[in-house]
């Protein structure tokens, strides 16, 4: 998709493949043919640059035809460079400016509680995204309002746009920060489906506080020449690289 589009963000899409796959195929209660089903669990992609990953998951689930994926980023396509919730069934939030998804998710979780609905709200953040102050405003509010139908997942690939988190803006001690903000905090290997599954299951029973799953991942996972390469944060592979990548991913 990204190769065809000629631009996009492969690294941060690949690092969250298992997270999103597990959510859409095992965790979420959803009906692809009824995307506005009021009782659906919500998945909110806060790191909107991983739009290709969300589009792929939605298409595989049947929200829209898989063939449409190759229209990514093209004029008149519904598949915008960053997610636009007005255009594609199943996309809950417009994203692209980092740091806003967790607040939105808190609002969706509060609405569920007000309406006595039992849906759960999942929101995927980047680790670099956690530089944004708004993330911590929202973290504080989620704990304060005791929203326990909310699960944040951080794609902890260690990289952001300019380099490693620890060099750009150190997040450590990361899990401790979430704990100190009042969150039930779990760390897992973000490429291990069974462990992710277990983590999602475990946080289901948490009451009175929100949960965060810090998923340790590798940016560009699955494509040897992209793994841990900061250059593949926001650069599309060329035709030869696409061919190589697809072969490796098979």
């Amino acid at each position: 998709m990204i190769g065809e589009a000629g631009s996009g963000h492969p690294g941060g899409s690949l690092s969250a493949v298992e997270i999103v796959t597990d959510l859409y195929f095992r965790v979420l209660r959803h009906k692809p043919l009824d995307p506005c089903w009021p009782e659906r669990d919500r998945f909110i992609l806060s790191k909107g640059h991983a739009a290709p990953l969300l589009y792929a998951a939605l298409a595989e689930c049947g929200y829209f035809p898989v063939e449409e994926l190759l229209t990514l980023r093209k004029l008149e396509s519904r598949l915008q460079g960053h997610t636009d919730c007005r255009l594609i069934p199943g996309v809950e939030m417009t994203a692209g400016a980092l740091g806003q998804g967790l607040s939105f998710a808190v609002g969706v979780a509060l609405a569920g509680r007000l309406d006595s609905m039992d849906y759960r709200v999942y929101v995927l953040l980047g680790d670099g995204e956690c530089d944004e102050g708004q993330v911590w405003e929202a973290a504080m509010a989620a704990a304060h309002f005791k929203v326990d139908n909310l699960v944040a997942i951080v794609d902890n690939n260690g990289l952001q746009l300019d380099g490693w988190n620890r060099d750009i803006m150190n997040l450590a001690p990361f899990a401790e920060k979430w704990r100190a903000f009042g969150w039930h905090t779990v760390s897992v290997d973000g490429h291990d489906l069974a462990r992710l599954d277990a983590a999602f299951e475990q946080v289901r029973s948490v009451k009175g506080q929100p949960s965060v799953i810090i998923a340790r991942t590798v940016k560009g996972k699955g494509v040897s020449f992209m793994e841990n390469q900061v250059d593949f944060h926001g650069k599309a592979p060329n035709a030869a690289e696409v061919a190589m990548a697809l072969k490796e991913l098979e």
Partner: protein
Amino acid sequence: MSEIVSLRETYGKTLAELGRENPDIVVLDADLSKSTMTHFFASEFPGRFFDCGIAEQNMVGIAAGLAASGKTPFASTFAVFVPGRCFDQVRMSVAQPGFNVKLVVTHGGISVGEDGTSHQSIEDLALIGALPGFTVIVPADAVETDRAVRAAASCCGPFYIRLGRPKLPLVFGEDYHFRLGKAATMKPGQDVTIIAIGIMVSAALEAAEKLGHQGIDCRVLNMSTLKPIDEEAIIKAARETGAIVTAEEHLEHGGLGSEVAQVTAKHQPVPLEFVAIKDTYARSGKDGELLKKYGLTADGIEAAVRSVMARKK
């Protein structure tokens, strides 16, 4: 002199009334509920009120999430903080998806007074007015505040309603029929039109009366819906009176004056004068003193009318 009534207090009470009528109305504030008067709603519906603390970006994001889930959130703070503190959140989390979020802000303009420059919102209408899909309302008095808040609650889509801190004289009776997107003719007139919003509407009426005694027949329009603006009323005023003065408690750039200039430039060019703050920040002082210092008074409007009349062919 007509009765002087607080717009904020009216907002708070109307909100509580709406809360009784509509269970989907929820209210958010950012540690200013005693000033924005959302406390009336909070004390009656504590389960539907969310004080987000001093975190406006988060407040706007939560409001967006609530709106996306079928609620009608009203989020309030001072006009300097929304949009000033969270423009990108208003833009991406509210305007771009077109969510049904109602931003009702208080302490707009310089009439906030002694708190000074940091608390005086004189750019907010330019910022919010730039966002596609937003409806922007600046009520002229308490009656119109009530009507505007009700209109916002019953229409879908993002709204920005800007109120001031001081109590204002009533310019409307209880029988006022507010029409969203339509200018209200406060006074008919043939020689020149004064188009005003908010606190400047009563000043415009005062100026019109004085000028009337001197043989200048002013039309006064209250353009409370700044966006979408009533182009028809502006074009008609330009055609019929041949000169327009705008009056607003905002920078000259990007508010009512700019809008009127754009509409007349395109459809019916006429001489214009702008009563507004001229590319500067104000300072501390009593509201009346500040309005006087920056020319946002009946006298200021009168002088502008004279100069626009002199340019009229």
